[in-house]
């Protein structure tokens, strides 16, 4: 028989990992809910014609298939555009702001790596209808809160302003075509090509240096002061003021120490217009997630509303948390019970009713195998009924003791 395969860039997840990822998702959800973000579910398949409204070039590489009428459908490459579509169309009669969150898989063809798959699971949110540092601050605070609820201790948010750099290029008179080329070099992180292109611009030396300095400007809050020297014109002034205000608000939430500034930051998506950010952790060579402000996307769908949001890669978050002491799963009491699905069915039910997890084993299992099964399942005890009494084997130390049936529930909960 041929080897039975799964598509490149997809993977199967087994219970131990799934339980941890689920725990992280619930931890994130608790924080999202506390800030009033309501979960939305959108179709896994969208019409190509709908998603292409976004004008996002990256979608050209997405997975496509046909429906029965021959119309082209796309496996959603991310969640921001579907939610923009939803807010602009489904909610046409309702007044913003809207606070939406999602926990969903998306699809982008990729060369698979650890933490990078063609099918990936994300937790994210979008705050639609408020254009202010207050909205940016809230979103960043929810992000930090969610990461900390997951038990991630070491992380930073690398924060920039897309409009700051764009305004700089426009103020010094860089043409659209030249801008496009500069952005392309930046998106490819090719600073050699970037410096080369900047060198060829018809601008004076001071402006040239300002462009080079802007993309290299990164570090702590001192960046906000250092960036003053680059300001040319009111738009840059405004962008920087907003960033400072956002920083102040995030510090009021208690997360100032998490922010790193990076004014040259660019994420792959074209639609960002204001703050842009990425979550980085020293243990990982790639970001755990990111987002930003995208004030023009909804207008493309016919409703001019500002918006800001982010997405966290749950696989990446899992890798990061695992590298920092592990997922703080609270297992609760549990036993593997010999005969739990026939002879000792009543005992199993009583235990479950008192809140003990019960994994049923065959009635005639040996002590050794019962102990192994309990350990495999991450349970505290193996329980073997012996006439009127109970033999209790503790997984941690392997000690055995005999208790009465009445004592059992209390013994395993202790």
């Amino acid at each position, binding site marked *: 028989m041929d080897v039975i395969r799964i598509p490149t860039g997809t993977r199967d997840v087994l219970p131990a990992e799934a339980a941890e990822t689920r725990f992280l998702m619930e931890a994130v959800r608790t924080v999202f809910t506390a800030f009033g973000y309501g979960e939305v579910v959108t179709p896994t398949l969208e019409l190509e014609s709908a998603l292409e409204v976004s004008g996002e070039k990256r979608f050209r590489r997405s997975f496509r298939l046909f429906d029965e009428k021959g119309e082209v459908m796309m496996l959603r490459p991310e969640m921001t555009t579907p939610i923009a579509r939803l807010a602009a169309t489904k909610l046409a009669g309702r007044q913003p702001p809207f606070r939406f969150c999602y926990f969903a898989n998306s699809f982008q063809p990729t060369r698979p790596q650890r933490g990078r798959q063609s099918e990936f699971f994300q937790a994210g949110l979008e705050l639609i209808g408020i254009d202010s540092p207050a909205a940016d601050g809230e979103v960043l605070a929810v992000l930090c809160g969610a990461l900390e609820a997951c038990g991630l201790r070491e992380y930073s948010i690398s924060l920039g302003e897309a409009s700051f750099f764009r305004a700089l290029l426009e103020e010094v008179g860089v043409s659209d075509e030249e801008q496009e080329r500069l952005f392309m070099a930046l998106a*490819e992180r090719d600073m050699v090509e970037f410096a080369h292109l900047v060198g060829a611009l018809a601008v004076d030396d001071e402006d040239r240096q300002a462009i080079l300095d802007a993309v290299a400007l990164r570090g702590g809050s001192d960046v906000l002061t250092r960036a003053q020297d680059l300001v040319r014109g009111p738009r840059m002034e405004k962008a920087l003021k907003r960033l400072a205000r956002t920083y102040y608000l995030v510090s009021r939430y208690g997360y100032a120490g998490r922010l790193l500034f990076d004014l040259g930051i660019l994420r792959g998506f074209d639609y960002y217009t204001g703050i842009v950010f990425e979550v980085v952790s020293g243990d990982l060579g790639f970001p755990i997630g990111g987002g930003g402000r995208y004030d023009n996307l909804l207008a493309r769908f016919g409703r001019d509303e500002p918006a800001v949001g982010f997405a966290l890669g749950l696989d990446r978050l899992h890798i990061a948390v695992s590298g920092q002491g592990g997922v703080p799963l609270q297992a609760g009491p549990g036993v593997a019970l010999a005969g739990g699905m026939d002879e000792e069915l009543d005992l199993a039910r009583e235990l479950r009713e008192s809140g003990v997890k019960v994994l049923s084993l065959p009635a005639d299992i040996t002590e050794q195998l019962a102990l192994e099964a309990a350990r495999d399942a991450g349970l505290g005890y193996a329980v073997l009924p012996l006439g009127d009494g109970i033999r209790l084997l503790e997984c941690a130390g392997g000690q055995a003791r005999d208790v009465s049936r009445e004592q059992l529930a209390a013994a395993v909960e202790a």
Partner: protein
Amino acid sequence: MVESPIPSVPLRIAVPRGNLFAPTIDLLEKVGFDVAELRANDRKLVFEVGEGREIITTRPSDVPVYVEYGASDVGIVGKDVLLEYVRNVYELMDLGYGECRIVFAVPEGRDPESEELRRLGVMRVASKYPAITRRFFEERGQQVEVIDLRGSIELAPQVDLAESIVDLTSTGVTLGENNLVEKAEIARSSARLVANRVSWKLKASTIDQLVKRIKEAQEE
């Protein structure tokens, strides 16, 4: 005692074995690293150079892999490798040495492109840069068969394995000795300093310092 060239934040630098090794070691010495052991020991892979800083030596094409995954914060690698194995790393500076060109070359006196076209065939191109070669001909709208070799590419046209080659050349001497003439320059290459995208943010001042020291060392 060599004076500390950059702030003492742990930093790992990936250095390629091969052609770029000697000039890279010279550069790192100028920058202020103690490279005596690197010169002396060609079997060791990890070198402590003090204050938590480390130099690792790898196969040239592996440098961007170590850097992309964050196993090394920065690395030194030829642009040819970056073009061939597109990796998600910051390309910070052109180090100026290891200069060469990637060219498309054919046997002297022949025009395999039109010969193959006339006979409705597909030209075979031998190269150790299959991705660069494919991209080059795709952009020209030309269909070719890329033959992926590891070394001595010039041999392929002589034994009719391929009608043409895409290869590195610095002086053109090897091409000439094998009766090959350059038809087009595909790219220029030289050694580049690359950085991991997270290190670039989290170790910003250390990496900026290193870049600054390298610039100063080059001007000396």
